């Protein structure tokens, strides 16, 4: 009781502030990264691996708490335990006033799941955690077979770099905010088409995962002279269009796509560091083909993915956080206003797609890992995708019972002679 230990706490980064405010039971803002092995998971070894991993990711020991003006992360000494999967995909993690860690590790048969509350980290940050976890697990489990060839951990940034708030580091100042505001009237986005459906009874996510050859899909993308992300985004827009009711067809379809800012600004943070861009497509009279959509999506990617644009957005969001007036508003009021703005912005988005990209592990582990996959809680059908070796896994999560868009999407791929393995949680 008489301890004089220093209270360790950290401010939230820019994106975390948003996630902490808007998470609820319907949209939990939890995402899942999974690694499927060829063998069944041994819980004891996994627990040891988790304890080892946690040593190099101290931020993962934090609990989220509410101050008078802002949320903050407070260090805790809670010990996480691995458990057999016993909750729906991306079930709530953060509960107000409850002190628990912001991630959980589940296993089921041969799969290891890491579920993370988005205020703690983004996909790339959490992927580093999962890769370290799988690394420790495989080394613990197969020390003999690997012999002397125990591979190096390929994510060994200093702890201070992992804890870095990169939004704050690359924030240049208020001037850009004004420029941004002036340019803003150039494109006022109109309301987007919104996908409707029947919610599942306890608002759980329905997950449909398609695993296929990355080379084969990339071949198709190359036939259109484009990248994997552009191709899949276009096919997603196309599938939504096919299932759209006729009277909704004058609304544009707008995809929201997160961008990993670590590609553009040097950072090794294991916390949030991403931005988002919107890709909009308005169907004119008459049938549009996939080719037309790809053309438009590619143009948007080229326009949006420049350092200047990303810088502008980063500074815009940071300036909201730095606004002296906004800072002194008490937290509950902040929460309500963020939720309100979020609701309004939500009308401008039809669906979202997020590509974690290519995941690499030391080649010594090739024989043990089947595939990686990623999925997230969502308000409407959403795609998350990642590639490991030649396994491209495209995961749809949706709170709706209907699966028409998913069906159209995968059928298009299977009809172009791509062999697809579907797994689902219902």
């Amino acid at each position, binding site marked *: 009781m008489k301890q004089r230990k220093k209270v360790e*706490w950290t401010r939230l980064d820019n994106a975390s502030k948003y996630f902490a405010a808007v998470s609820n039971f319907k949209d939990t803002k939890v995402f899942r990264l999974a690694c499927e092995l060829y063998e069944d998971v041994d819980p004891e070894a996994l627990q040891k691996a988790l304890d080892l991993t946690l040593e190099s990711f101290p931020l993962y020991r934090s609990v989220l708490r509410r101050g008078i003006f*802002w949320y903050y992360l407070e260090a805790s000494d809670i010990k996480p335990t691995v458990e*057999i999967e016993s909750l729906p995909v991306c079930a709530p993690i953060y*509960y107000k006033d409850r002190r628990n860690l912001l991630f959980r590790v589940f296993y089921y048969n041969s799969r290891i799941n890491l579920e993370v509350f988005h205020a703690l980290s983004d996909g790339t940050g959490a992927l580093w955690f999962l890769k370290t976890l799988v690394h420790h697990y495989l080394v613990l489990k197969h020390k003999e077979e690997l012999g002397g060839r125990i591979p190096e951990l390929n994510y060994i940034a200093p702890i201070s770099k992992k804890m870095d708030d990169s939004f704050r580091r690359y924030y240049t100042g208020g001037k850009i905010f004004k420029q941004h505001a002036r340019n803003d009237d150039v494109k006022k986005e109109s309301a987007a088409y919104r996908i409707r459906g029947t919610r599942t009874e306890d608002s759980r996510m329905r997950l449909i995962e*398609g695993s296929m050859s990355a080379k084969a899909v990339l071949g198709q993308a190359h036939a259109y002279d484009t990248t994997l992300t552009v191709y899949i985004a276009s096919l997603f827009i196309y599938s939504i269009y096919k299932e759209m009711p006729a009277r909704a067809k004058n609304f544009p379809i707008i995809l929201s796509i997160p961008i990993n800012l670590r590609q553009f600004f040097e950072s090794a943070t294991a916390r949030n560091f991403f931005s988002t861009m919107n890709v909009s497509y308005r169907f004119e009279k008459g049938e549009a083909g996939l080719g037309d959509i790809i053309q438009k999506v590619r143009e948007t990617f080229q326009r949006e993915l420049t350092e200047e644009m990303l810088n502008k957005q980063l500074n815009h969001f940071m300036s909201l956080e730095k606004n002296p007036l906004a800072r002194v508003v008490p937290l509950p009021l902040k929460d309500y206003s963020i939720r309100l703005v979020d609701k309004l912005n939500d009308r401008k988005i039809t669906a979202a797609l997020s590509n974690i990209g290519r995941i690499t592990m030391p080649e010594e582990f090739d024989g043990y890992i089947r595939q990686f996959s990623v999925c997230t809680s969502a308000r409407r059908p959403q795609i998350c995708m990642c590639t490991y070796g030649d396994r491209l896994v495209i995961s749809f999560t949706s709170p709706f019972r209907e*699966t028409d868009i998913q*069906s159209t999407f995968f*059928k298009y791929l299977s009809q172009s002679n791509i062999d697809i393995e579907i797994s689902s*949680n219902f």
Partner: protein
Amino acid sequence: MRYCSHCKVRIRGNKEFCPLCGNSLPAGDGSAQKEVYPEIPPFYERHVAVRIMAFISIAAVVTSFAVYMIFPASVNWPLLVVFGILSMWLSLVVVIRKRHNMPKTIMWQVTVASALSVFWDWETGWKGWSREYFIPIACVTAMLVMYVTAKIMKLSVRDYIAYALLNGLFGIVPILFILLDWIEVYHASIVCIALSIIFISAIFIFQGENIKEELNKRMHI
């Protein structure tokens, strides 16, 4: 592995229907596969106790109004029943919502109970018992309860120190009652004020650094 000939995809696990198109699937080669995802039973938050209480509350209110209409009385007592039930619900909601943080629950209870006592006092003829007795006694009790809970639950100092301070400050409020001459009976208020001042000074003398850090953390802008 099963195969959906409509969607032209292979399906993992032992599904009877294609998750994409909903058509039934042929048995395949008959060998049972390992499931990829566990089946998780639907989860509903069932608060049976809360439902029973809600039912009893409504029944009680309706009955008392019915009885009052049949046998009129000089006091409008069914209204008091309504207020009583509302008061109970108000403190129940606070307890349920804040149940994971004991010191916070205690602080909230004192605030809610004090507010309710003023309301009841006013509603029943403004005799002043809420300010003369209830609020001072509630504050002192809360201080004791908070200290005892912290010891029993082995809370670390920084988990409750901010609430203890808040509690102490709240305990000084009755000084206003005396200064503004709102009350006639002083003794409960004086005991409360004295204890609060001692309590606060103890916090600052023994836990000054903790308080400073705790405030820095909670108040950062």
